[in-house]
């Protein structure tokens, strides 16, 4: 099971959503719930996935859908930290890549390889 926790940033400047462990379908509902809550507020979303060990299609779908919805709402969804190998491996196996996706949010697709932030 994956872990979804909020971490306050240093200096009280907002918080980061940290995803950890195996992001499997058992975590998908919680993940959607948390992301939807942020979407419905004005808070900017910063996520850190660097401690994710693996991810399945259910959770990838939640993250893709969330990225699209944030994009549509003109909201930023940023990543802190690297995207770990476990995620890249799953995306590759599922053939999910910004190159073969026509969602309007592809230009800022977080799955683009080698685009870790900060």
């Amino acid at each position, binding site marked *: 099971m994956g872990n979804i926790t909020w971490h306050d940033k240093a200096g009280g400047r907002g918080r980061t959503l940290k995803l950890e462990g195996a992001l499997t379908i058992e975590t998908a509902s919680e993940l959607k719930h948390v992301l*939807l809550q942020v979407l419905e507020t004005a808070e900017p979303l910063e996520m850190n996935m660097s401690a994710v060990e693996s991810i399945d299609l259910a959770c990838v779908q939640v993250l893709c*859908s969330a990225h699209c919805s944030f994009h549509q709402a003109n909201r930023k969804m940023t990543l802190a930290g690297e995207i770990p190998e476990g995620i890249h491996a799953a995306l590759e196996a*599922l053939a999910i890549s910004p190159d073969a996706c026509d969602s309007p949010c592809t230009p800022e697709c977080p799955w683009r390889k080698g685009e870790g932030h900060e």
Partner: protein
Amino acid sequence: MDAPKQLYREEAFELLADLEEALIELEQQPGDLDTVNRIFRAMHTIKGSGAMFGFDDIASFTHTIETAYDLIREEKLSVDEELISLTLRSCDQIKVMLDASQGGEDADASLTGEITASFRKLISSVEGTPQERDDSCPADTGGEQGNGLKAETTYRIRFKPHRELFRNGTNPIPLLNEIRGLGHAHVICHLKELPGLKDLDPEACYTYWDIILTTDKDIDSIRDVFIFVEHISDIEVTKIDDYGEIDHEEYKKIGEILFDRGDISLGDLESILGRQKRIGELLVESGKARRSEVQSALVEQEHVRNLRKKRMGTMPVDGASSIRVASQKLDSLVNLVGELVTVQARLTQLSAQRNDTDLTLVSEEVERLTAELRDNAMGIRMLPIGTTFGKFKRLVRDLSTELGKEVDFTTSGEETELDKTVIDRLGDPLVHLIRNSIDHGIESPEAREAAGKPAGGTIRLTAEHSGAYVLISVSDDGAGLDTEAIRAKAMEKGLISPDANLSEKEIFELVLAPGFSTARSVSKVSGRGVGMDVVTSSIESFGGTVEIASAKGSGTTITLKLPLTLAIIDGLLVTISDEYFVMPLNAVVECVELSADDRRHTHGRNLARVRGEIVPYIPLREVFSLDGDNPAIEQVVVTEIGERRIGFVVDKVVGQHQTVIKNLGKFLRHVEGVSGATIMGDGTVALILDINKLTQQAEFTEKYQTVH
């Protein structure tokens, strides 16, 4: 014996005990179906588990008995005393088999056969007996075709799971990986049905895939992968290419593929086809198809086209369907293609300036067709080199007789294809090389025997492909080159200074220098030793190189490295002071920047550091005495000649350029360092650099400077 096997044995003995009990009960109440069922299940378990634990003999033996009891269950066969005693004997036989696996005596095969035969007789006595059930594992089908071509088929698989895919515990990742494991696969993912976060059911599957798979497995093996999900997915497997399909490498148009897949309707297709634009673009622009769908269709198109191209390449040429054409006609075809390439370059340039989408589309189409036409025209001119090999046999025979030497001549690689023009110009150099081998290389029979070699020498003529080149080598098992003799001769001729420190390779290269001959006497055959430098210059004149390898006492190999074609090359276009030059792309390794600082750091020596390696460079502005100042940052085009890297400094690298080679006129023919010219799209002339010559020149200058 491993633990599971041991356990099976124990269980089987228990089952057999139960079975015997049931058989005796059955004998007393022959009509009791419950007992029959009990016997059937026990046999089934013994058989089934037997196969699982490696007791194949038991499995096949029990199979027949099980079939008989199945018939009794269906009341097609009746129980009698004979059947019961036959079954009891079978039980004993199974026990023997079980014991055999633990070091006991082997079961009597003839008894096994006898019992099986009796059961078969009972089974066949039943009228209309269905074929024996076959529960064995499905064998892999597919494989090789008679002609050695792999019997590969390409399928398009659309795997579209229903929303509830995950609900039964299915994870699509291993499924997709299993499909990939069947062969060569392209997987394209579609996410277009994924809703926004608010409407998303996090436990539903919205994703689907197109898979283009080339495999030697049959369609059932593909369906088998999806067997657990076929009730919760739409799975379409369509054969789109077959190994038998060799008539044309052209594959369906994008519109057709999308229509096949049901991504667009026929109406969509027709309304779009009326306009002149790339179909894929149009479909996306008009919103009739998604970009990802078009992308996926493109992947399929490319996958199959590549496959067919490859297959056509390996097909044997059918002699009956070839025609003879005068080579002049081919030459003029290639000339025309050359003109076309030039015009096409102009068109591309124009369309880039005009910024007109329609023009760009036409221009791109022309570019694609021209490239194909060029490759085809070049392909027609390719001939197997073997045709010229024949005449050398005669040459070797005549020469060896004349010189009193015994020479065995062998050839290989006759099927290697080369541009006709190259083959035509190869004749004389090869004659020289073979003459040299017989005259200077192969020793007299007496000398050979004295050296412990067979009296007869061997000359080998071989041809083989190596990238964009063909390697042709002439090797002999003769005396080899005498480095000391060459050195002495070179000094005598003033080709090298007495204190020159030369590697073996450099010494061999001296043989290729003008006016060099090591033969002690001038023989009628090799003439006056003008041979080698004539060979070198004629090979270099069409972009080839000559290499010598030799070991004293055991022989010499001279290798000619020839470009596949002469008329058109892929070039790298560069500029120096507004002048255009073309460098052959196949020699170019990479381009790096050279700043004025870099220049200063090497104290005026022409050396650049490329990834830790020191690469000497040649400043072309100086070589060609061109006006103008060096830009602040120049470009070094690093090339590879033989095993060495040499850089050429230019102002700017423009990019790749299809180059139709035109010969230089009379006056320019002897300009060193330039092998030809080409006409650019806008009519300007670009000179084609002869990087081999330029390097040699620079080395000569360098040496000259160090010596003096």
